[in-house]
């Protein structure tokens, strides 16, 4: 085992550990992330070898890079002492023709002048690398990582409070620009429901999207989860009850065009118009992961096919000698349904269509209401492994992550009857607004 240091992104720190654990599990890497601290973007982990380190970080969204750790200290002098003590273990390989460069990355540090940087790098002269320095694509990058605290004025203090020195093993998908690449506004097709690029990429990692596996989003909308799943090699398929959403905004502005735009046309299988609760996928079609954000009902309620009145005989209406409901232009009526029931359906469906060990991942809104306990749906075949909260001003949402377990698991069941009344997001969301406006008056 060797020590590696991960430089994490200081973004959604509450999701970082779950992402690392999910990626470790995906690549069969045993690692302990218990030292992770949300306040702090540096994490030392022990791994078997560089290949593990490379894989762990390669597609990460909330990490920046991983480095073989040569030494650390709370002052620059202590760092050098420590590196000199350890260097014997690492250095042999780098004496000869290896080209290299140094770099300096900080958390909350100010910008150093070129002279300050060079001075910093020259103090490592004792490493006595014989290879040439090369700024573009060197064989090795050596990195000095620094953590700064901020003073009362919110400017960084003069000296860092911790420094690490290491050899770069890999930088993450994030550092290679994947979050900007999938920026919603850059896509040929997006809409009001499009899901934030960073978090939809993250969902793909926590949902363990795997290369050449079939990834299903049952509430696909504008397809945010599918385009980002394609980035990780997933073969994607989606469905939605709204035909117009699937049709897109015109030629070259359909969901399919997003896949062409990202040069992944094969990763797009299809989108189908269907009511999830009357699903048309054959029973023995298995999915590698199911990822989605179900309809919340803030703007539009949850809808399913059907009518609330039970007027008989509608199915006998004939137009131009044809049964109306069999005509191409027939419009299937829709009725309101509850989010709770829909989530029960989602868990039941997923339990039938996921293989053991595969994941169901979805976002569920919850109002920030402390008096009412919020029950999370559960199914006996699933282990709920994460319940990650993202807080907004008036509400929050959770990323719920379930793993399908095998025979004999017999997990907890929490169905809509148990949750009755506690999850009515639409009511509680609007209720909050009206209370607020009362206060203003």
């Amino acid at each position, binding site marked *: 085992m060797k020590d590696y240091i991960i430089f994490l992104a200081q973004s959604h720190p509450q999701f970082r550990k779950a992402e690392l654990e999910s990626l470790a599990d995906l690549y069969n890497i045993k690692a302990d992330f218990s030292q992770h601290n949300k306040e702090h973007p540096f994490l030392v982990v022990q791994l078997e070898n560089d290949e593990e380190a490379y894989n762990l970080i390669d597609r990460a969204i909330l990490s920046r890079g991983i480095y073989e750790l040569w030494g650390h200290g709370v002052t620059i002098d202590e760092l050098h002492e420590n590196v000199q003590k350890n260097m014997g273990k690492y250095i042999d390989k780098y004496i000869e023709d290896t080209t290299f460069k140094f770099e300096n990355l900080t958390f909350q540090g100010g910008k150093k002048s070129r002279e300050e940087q060079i001075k910093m790098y020259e103090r490592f002269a004792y490493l006595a690398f014989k290879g040439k320095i090369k700024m573009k694509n060197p064989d090795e990058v050596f990195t000095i990582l620094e953590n700064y605290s901020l003073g009362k004025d919110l400017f960084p203090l003069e000296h860092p409070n911790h420094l690490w020195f290491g050899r770069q093993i890999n930088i993450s998908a994030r550092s290679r620009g994947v979050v900007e690449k999938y920026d919603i506004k850059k896509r040929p097709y997006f809409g009001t429901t499009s899901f934030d690029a960073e978090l939809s990429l993250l969902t793909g990692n926590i949902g363990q999207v795997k290369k050449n596996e079939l990834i299903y989003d049952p509430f696909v909308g504008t397809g945010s989860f599918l385009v980002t799943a394609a980035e990780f090699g997933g073969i994607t398929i989606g469905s939605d009850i709204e035909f117009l959403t699937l049709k897109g905004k015109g030629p070259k502005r359909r969901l399919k065009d997003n896949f062409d735009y990202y040069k992944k046309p094969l990763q797009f299988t299809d989108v189908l*118009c269907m009511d999830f609760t*009357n699903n048309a996928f054959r029973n023995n079609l298995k999915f590698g992961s199911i990822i989605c954000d179900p309809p919340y009902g803030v703007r539009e309620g949850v809808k399913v096919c059907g009518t609330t009145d039970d007027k008989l005989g509608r199915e006998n209406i004939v137009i131009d000698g044809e049964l109306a*409901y069999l005509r191409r232009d027939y419009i299937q009526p829709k009725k309101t349904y509850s989010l709770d029931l829909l989530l029960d359906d989602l868990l039941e469906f997923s339990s039938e269509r996921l293989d053991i060990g595969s994941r169901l991942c979805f976002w569920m809104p919850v109002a920030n209401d402390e008096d009412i306990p919020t029950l999370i749906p559960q199914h006996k075949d699933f282990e709920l492994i994460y319940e990650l909260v993202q807080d907004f001003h008036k509400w929050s949402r959770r990323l719920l992550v379930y793993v399908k377990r095998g025979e004999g698991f017999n997990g907890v069941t929490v169905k809509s009857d148990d949750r009755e009344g506690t999850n009515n997001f639409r009511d509680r969301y609007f209720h909050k607004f009206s209370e607020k406006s009362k206060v203003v008056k």
Partner: protein
Amino acid sequence: MKFITSNFVRCAVKSCDGTEGSFPLNFQDCKLQLEEQEFNEEFIISMLERLDWSALVKVASQLGNNAIPPQKPSLDDINEVLLKDLHSLLLETQIIEGKMICDNCQHVYYIKDGIASFLLPPHLAK
């Protein structure tokens, strides 16, 4: 709708679940379009294991393609010509308009503007 999707869908009516006529659906009056895609051997091979072969043969023939071997070829004796044919059939063939009929309940689903719709009328929705 890509041709390959025809291999994944059955009638959405709950009482048709498991009946022979509900999968594959019977494709009628279809308008096809070929959209070129780059050939990727690894991709098409990974797709093969997901296919229900007899359904593939059946729907291909409904659409006028009778060239698919009746038995699923094993990975050892699959050749590039067949893989390319499958690539063209499964991934490049788009159904732009058409009907999909359930031979069990006779319900008719439509493909409109390239998108297959499985929405049900009230008396067939659960």
